[in-house]
């Protein structure tokens, strides 16, 4: 027994000694280690990827014809792989001149043929984000004429009608506009898939980094592209590891095992704010949190009941108590920093007003609703706070927590009472949110316009639909912005959407990390700007 105890103690001591020396103190100077929740990545093909983490990865591995300058995002779209462009007088033909001297990570030179191939395959593959391009009238049958490389340096794009130039170019800057190395993609083609099977798990771009490895739900590693046309990335390697737990991210950041922690809760942000070795970066992102009332159901379709909901939410209170620094109050459908942003915040918590409105509507105490909410801590906390204030106003609200996929099924089938969730813009143009919140050309069940939130909530808006359609065609940017502001003002008054918050991303960083751009509302994370 004594022998056994001593042997065991000696063994444990050996393990502890061995392991305690194994921990590293800090990450190397030319290497960035990031902890983030990256389990949402489904595909790495730019024609298909549509999730936040996938967008981050592709931002760094591909370039687009039109891009944002990460060092000056507010300047709007800038030349990317297209060095310049002209638009015909009728506003339908875009002639883009390709940048010289750009090579892919494979070493292949970039030409207009690659741009033609990339945009055409995005249309032909018909994956979910393809609508960002097909909304300009590109179809399987006409792309040979509408997206065409006329020579190695020139790409001509012809839209079906005149759109605001900013709308077309902003859409080309979305992930789906990423330019793929045609030769590499086709060398991996199987059964005419244009390299889709291979590109789902590999990358072939001109971006600052090449993907070295990707292990789903685990990690990915990026290696600097020596041929990158913009600059030589200071970080030679970027490791992004999936760590979903905030406390685990924080511990690793404090220890110096990682340089960047991207999913810290308010508690962990507060905890590190006094640490001299760390800093917190705040960036306003595009995600909007809202609650919507199904207009197919009475009494939720009574305008007075809808308005009562808007007065029965404690916007400021929630940002101070449960959302601490991670959301700001925002009550219009376009995220702040978007063209046409509206800063008006007409609603605040006013229980008396909500009660009066309900009484006027003849529903002083008989409104009972189910609120479908995603079973995630932030949304649940918001829902519980709203449930409390709604009760004070005389509305009996029952919360139905659901997984993301589960809640979407009911929402898209227009079977919900009230939905509480979030919406992130698909591309950096105001039409992305206007099209979903304020455009519903056919409110019938058969139309199944499931991509539009206005349709999902059964909100019939022929006039606002016309106004939204007009705004997307306006060539003058200042006028266009004013049109969106007018639509949003009306939307705030009449819509069944209670828009509440806009996301602020708080990132924890080691003090020596400089230049990390998380992308604001219009872009994604950039690693090539980072120095240490």
């Amino acid at each position, binding site marked *: 027994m004594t022998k056994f105890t001593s042997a065991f103690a000696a063994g444990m001591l050996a393990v502890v000694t061995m392991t305690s020396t194994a921990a590293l103190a800090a990450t190397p100077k030319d290497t960035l280690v990031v902890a983030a929740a990256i389990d949402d990545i489904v595909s790495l093909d730019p024609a298909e990827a549509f999730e936040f983490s996938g967008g981050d990865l592709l931002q760094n591995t591909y370039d687009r014809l039109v891009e944002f300058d990460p060092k000056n995002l507010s300047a709007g779209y800038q030349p990317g792989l297209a060095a310049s462009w002209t638009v015909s007088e009728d506003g339908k033909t875009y002639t883009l001149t390709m940048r010289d001297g750009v090579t892919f990570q494979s070493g292949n030179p970039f030409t207009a043929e690659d741009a033609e191939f990339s945009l055409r395959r995005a249309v032909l593959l018909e994956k979910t984000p393809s609508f960002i391009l097909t909304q300009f009238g590109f179809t399987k049958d006409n792309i040979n004429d509408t997206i065409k490389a006329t020579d190695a340096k020139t790409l001509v794009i012809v839209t079906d009608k005149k759109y605001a130039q900013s709308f077309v170019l902003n859409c080309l800057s979305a992930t789906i506009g990423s330019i793929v190395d045609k030769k590499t993609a086709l060398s991996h083609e199987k059964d005419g898939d244009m390299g889709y099977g291979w590109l789902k798990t590999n990358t072939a771009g001109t971006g600052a980094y090449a993907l070295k490895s990707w292990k789903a739900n685990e990690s990915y*590693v990026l290696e600097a592209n020596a041929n990158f046309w913009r600059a030589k990335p200071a970080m030679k390697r970027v490791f992004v*590891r999936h760590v979903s737990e905030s406390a685990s991210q924080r511990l690793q950041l404090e220890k110096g095992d990682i340089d960047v922690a991207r999913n810290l809760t308010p508690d962990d942000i507060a905890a590190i704010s006094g640490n001299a070795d760390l800093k917190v970066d705040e960036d306003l992102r595009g995600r909007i949190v809202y609650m919507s009332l199904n207009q197919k159901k009475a009494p939720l379709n009574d305008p007075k009941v809808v308005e009562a909901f808007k007065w029965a939410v404690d916007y400021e209170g929630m940002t101070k108590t449960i959302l601490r620094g991670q959301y700001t109050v925002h009550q219009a459908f376009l995220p702040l920093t978007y063209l046409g942003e509206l800063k008006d915040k007409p609603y605040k918590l006013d229980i008396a007003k909500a009660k009066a409105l309900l009484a006027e509507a003849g529903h002083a105490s008989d409104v009972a609703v189910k609120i479908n909410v995603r079973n995630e801590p932030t949304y649940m906390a918001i829902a519980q706070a709203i449930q409390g204030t709604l009760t004070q106003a005389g509305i009996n609200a029952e919360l139905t927590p659901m997984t993301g996929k589960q809640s979407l099924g009911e929402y898209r089938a227009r079977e919900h009472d009230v939905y509480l969730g979030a919406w992130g813009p698909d591309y950096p143009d105001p039409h992305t949110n206007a099209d979903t919140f304020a455009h519903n050309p056919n409110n019938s069940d058969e139309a199944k316009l499931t991509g539009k939130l206005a349709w999902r909530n059964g909100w019939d808006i022929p006039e606002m639909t016309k106004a939204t359609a007009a705004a997307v065609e306006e060539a003058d940017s200042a006028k266009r912005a004013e049109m969106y502001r007018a639509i949003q003002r009306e939307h705030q008054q009449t819509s069944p959407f209670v828009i509440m918050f806009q996301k602020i991303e708080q990132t924890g960083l080691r003090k020596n990390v400089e230049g990390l751009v998380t992308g604001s509302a219009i872009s994604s994370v950039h690693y090539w700007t980072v120095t240490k």
Partner: protein
Amino acid sequence: MSLTGTTSGGRRAWLSSRSGILKGGRLLVSLAVTMLGLLLITFLIGRVMPIDPVLAVVGERATKEVYEATRAAMGLDDPLYIQFWNYITEVLRGDFGMSLLTSRPVIEDIARVFPATLELATVATFLGVAIGVPAGVVAAVNQGRWPDHLVRLLGLFGYSMPVFWLGLMGLLVFYGKLDWVAGPGRLDVFFEDVVPQVTGVILIDSLLAGDTEVFANALSHIVLPASVLGYYSLAYVSRMTRSFMLEQLAQEYVTTARVKGLSEARVIWRHALGNVMVPLITVIALSYANLLEGSVLTEIVFAWPGIGFYITNALLAADMSAVLGGTVVVGIVFIGLNLLSDVLYRFVDPRAR
């Protein structure tokens, strides 16, 4: 006599081999039925869940056309029994389908995540048994005295502490403050892909490659999550050992052994514990099997990419190929461990042969 003897001996051998084949056949049939039942139930649960698997593929923004084309391509328009039949025939061909979440064949995903769980569960069970069995014996021998109370208290603590909390506290103390172990993950990022993957179990692969630095790093990463999981195993094993031992120590053969003058250590550790081994093997196998299912919370806290996290994620995203593939693996593990405990049972108990 000798002739008769030979004949009867040959007949016995024939009968015994025949019964062996019959037993084996019965076992195979029961295995097949169990697996089929497991697949059917999982398949049906996947289909009645209020989650739309098409949305998992196409995402929230998909248009009606994209949605319907995808639904048809996934075969979801076929009747349920045809979908199940298609699935079974594919599984029999070794094709578990593609995971929606990872865009890779499910079989490749499982080959990646299962060794992570296997490694963690094995080290955890080793720790649990190495400490739990002696602790149980000591508690039984000292029934009602302080060592007994201590072991029972530790066991109770192990049962009642949420793994999430215990894991975070462990990280805070042993990684954050004391710096004794490495943080979340299976390896430091710089060691990833350094040694070639042979078994997927990094502790073994690094030894095969002769890379002691990677081995030490992997060990420093596994110690804490394995200790947290092992603590649960310890709590269960020590409690069961104590109760089995108390039963044995009250038996007459123990008194006889003492009367014969055998040393107390021999009586306890050889005779009493020897008889406890039979039920204890089942307990350990069950505890091991539970850990092999994957402990989702431990995997989340320690960013350990194991099968529990994989199946849970797949289930929430309606990635049914991945869920079914994972279920088959867990099913096989359970059945395999049951068989193994049966074999060990026969080995340690002559009456069972």
